C-alpha cells in the first residue's frame, strides 16, 4: 500500500523531470526571444530581465517578411497533406479490403523507402527539378512533401481501414453500393477520426520539414525553415533574432497541436486501445 503510493510518487517525479528536460530548450528559446542580443549572448544565463519585442520586430521584417514564408509553409503543408490523403485513401482501400499475397510486402516496401537518407536522392532530385523548372516553386515542395509523407499516410489510413470489419463493407456491397458509394457513405465516415489524426500528423511533418525546403527553395517558395536559416550570419549577434524567428515559426503548429492533442492521441492509439 505505502510502497505502491511511494512508487506512484517516484514515477510522478520522474515523469515531471523528463517533461521538464524536454520542455527546457523550448522555454529557453522563448526567453531568449524576448532578450536583447547582448543579454542573449551573455555567458551568465539570466531568467530575470526586462523583456523586449525588439527581436520580433526585426525578425518579422527579415527577408521577404515573415508572412511570405509562413504562407508558403502553410500552402505546401496543407496541399501536400490533401494530395497525400487523396492518393492514400484508394491505395489503402484496395490493400485493406482486397488484399492479396503481395499486400504485406508492398506495405513494408513502401515504409522501407523511408529508410533511405534524403541526401541519397538529393542530386537526382535537384537535377530533375532544375530541368522541369520546379526548383523554388511551391508545387515542387508540395510534391516532395507528398512523396515524403505518403508511405506513412498510406500505412496509417490502411490500419484505420483494417479496423473496420470486412462484414460491413460486404454488407454495403450486397445492399447495392458501388465502390465509391461504399467508400464515401460507409468507410470514410467510420474512419474519419483516424483520417483526421493522419492528416494532422502529415501537416506537422510537412510544416517541420527543413532539409528539402532549404535545398530546393530560396526565395519564391521559401518556407519558414528557410526563413530561420537566413538568420545565421557570419558576423554579428543573432541569437535573440533567431529565437524570435523560431518562436514565430513553431507557434502556429504548437497552437494547432494544443487544440488537437486529444484527437492526435486518440488517433495514434486507436488500434491499441480497442
Amino acid at each position: 500500500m505505502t510502497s505502491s503510493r511511494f512508487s506512484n510518487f517516484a514515477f510522478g517525479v520522474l515523469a515531471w523531470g523528463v517533461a521538464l528536460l524536454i520542455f527546457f530548450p523550448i522555454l529557453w528559446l522563448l526567453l531568449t526571444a524576448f532578450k536583447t542580443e547582448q543579454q542573449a549572448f551573455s555567458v551568465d544565463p539570466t531568467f530575470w530581465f526586462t523583456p523586449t519585442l525588439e527581436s520580433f520586430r526585426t525578425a518579422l521584417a527579415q527577408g521577404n517578411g515573415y508572412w511570405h514564408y509562413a504562407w508558403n509553409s502553410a500552402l505546401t503543408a496543407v496541399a501536400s497533406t490533401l494530395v497525400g490523403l487523396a492518393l492514400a485513401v484508394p491505395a489503402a482501400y484496395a490493400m485493406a479490403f482486397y488484399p492479396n499475397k503481395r499486400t504485406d510486402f508492398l506495405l513494408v516496401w513502401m515504409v522501407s523507402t523511408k529508410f533511405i537518407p534524403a541526401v541519397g536522392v538529393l542530386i537526382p532530385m535537384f537535377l530533375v527539378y532544375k530541368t522541369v523548372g520546379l526548383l523554388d516553386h511551391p508545387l515542387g515542395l508540395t510534391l516532395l512533401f507528398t512523396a515524403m509523407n505518403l508511405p506513412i499516410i498510406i500505412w496509417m489510413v490502411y490500419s484505420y481501414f483494417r479496423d473496420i470489419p470486412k462484414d460491413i463493407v460486404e454488407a454495403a456491397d450486397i445492399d447495392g453500393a458501388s465502390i465509391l458509394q461504399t467508400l464515401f457513405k460507409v468507410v470514410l465516415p467510420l474512419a474519419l477520426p483516424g483520417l483526421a489524426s493522419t492528416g494532422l500528423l502529415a501537416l506537422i511533418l510537412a510544416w517541420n520539414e527543413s532539409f528539402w525546403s532549404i535545398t530546393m527553395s530560396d526565395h519564391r517558395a521559401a518556407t519558414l525553415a528557410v526563413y530561420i536559416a537566413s538568420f545565421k550570419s557570419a558576423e554579428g549577434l543573432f541569437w535573440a533574432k533567431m529565437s524570435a524567428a523560431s518562436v514565430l515559426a513553431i507557434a502556429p503548429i504548437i497552437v494547432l497541436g494544443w487544440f488537437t492533442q486529444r484527437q492526435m492521441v486518440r488517433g495514434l492509439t486507436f488500434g491499441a486501445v480497442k
Partner: protein
Amino acid sequence: MAIVELKNVAKRYGSSGSNAVENFNLTTRDGEFVVLVGPSGCGKSTTMRMIAGLERNTDGEILIGGRDVSQVPPKERDIAMVFQSYALYPHMTVAENMAFSLKLKKRSATEIKAQVDDAARTLGIEQLLERKPRELSGGQRQRVALGRAIVRSPQVFLMDEPLSNLDAKLRVDMRAEIVKLHKRLKVTTFYVTHDQVEAMTMGERIVVMKDGQIQQIDTPINLYEHPANRFVAGFIGNPSMNFLRASHVDGVLEGEGFRLTLDPAHAKTMAARAGDVWVGVRPEHLEDTDGEGNAIAGEVEVVETLGSVTVVQLRVGERFVTAQLSGHRRIEVGERLTLGCASDKLHLFDVESDEVIARNSVSALNAVAT
C-alpha cells in the same frame, strides 16, 4: 422469390490446396427454407458466400431464378444477407441502416419510410428507429439486421449463423421468429448453422456437409430416420447415436457385451455380405429390458438425471454406450444394466466406407419367399 440451383459448384481458395467446397449440387423449391449444417470449417460459409457473390465459384454454375449469376456481382443478384456479426453500419441510425439499400436504389422518401416502418413493425423495433447500433442489445441488433434484409424484398435470403452470438434463451425465441417470418414472406432462404438442433427445428430441407462435401440432403425427419452414412447418423440427434462394431452371423449381430437380432429386411440385405459392420443405436431407442431378444449389457459409469429423462452411460466392452431412458430412474453408478432396442430401430453401416447398409424392402423378401 426464386428457385436457386447449384450445379457442380466448387470453390478453391488461392492457387493450391484442396477444395473448400466440392461438387455441390442442390435445387431449391421456390420459397424453400434450406439449412446448411455441419461442423466448423466444412464449407457452409463458403457456399453461402458463393451464392451471395462475395466469393466467385471456381467451378460449376449458380442460378437464381433461372439466371446464371456466376459472373454477376453481389449487388445485381437481388439477394439479402444477414451476417453473424450483424454488420450494421455503426454510424447510421436503425432507420438509416434499413433504408440504405432503398436509398441507393433511388426510391422516393415516402416509399422508403413506408417500407422501413412496415419492416420495423413486423420485427417489433418501431421504438428503436432513431437509435444507433451501439445503443442496442444483441437481440435488438439481430432484429435490425433482419429488418435491413427484409425491406429490400429480395429474391433470396442468406443467413450465416445469425443467432450464434445470442444467449440460449433468446436464440430459441429468434429461431421461432425467423421461421414465422419465412412463413409470412415465403422468400427462398439459405440458413447456415453448426447447431443440429437449429437445423432440425428450422429447416424444410437440410444439407449436411463435412469437409466441403455434401453428406446428405433431406427433410429433418428423414435425416433422423434414414441417415445416409455414419457421419450424418452421429451428427443429427442429441445425444449422439451409439456405434458398436459387430460381427454378423445369420441375422444376428454380436460383439463384446451385446447381441442384436436383425429385422427380416436387414437380415435379407446382410445375408449377401460377409465380415463386420457398424451397428448404430440412438440413445432414445434403448430401454430397460429383461434380457430377452436384443440386449446390450454393461456397467453404469455415469448417470445424469434431467427430470423428464435419465441419461445413462454404460461401458460395453471397450466402448461407451449412451442411453436416454424416459422419466426419472433410480440407477446407481457401478450397477450392471441390460438394455434392449427394437430391431427396426437399428442402423447398419459398412466398416470400410461408413455408408449405410439399407434395408431391402420386406415385400421384396416376401416375393422371394413365395
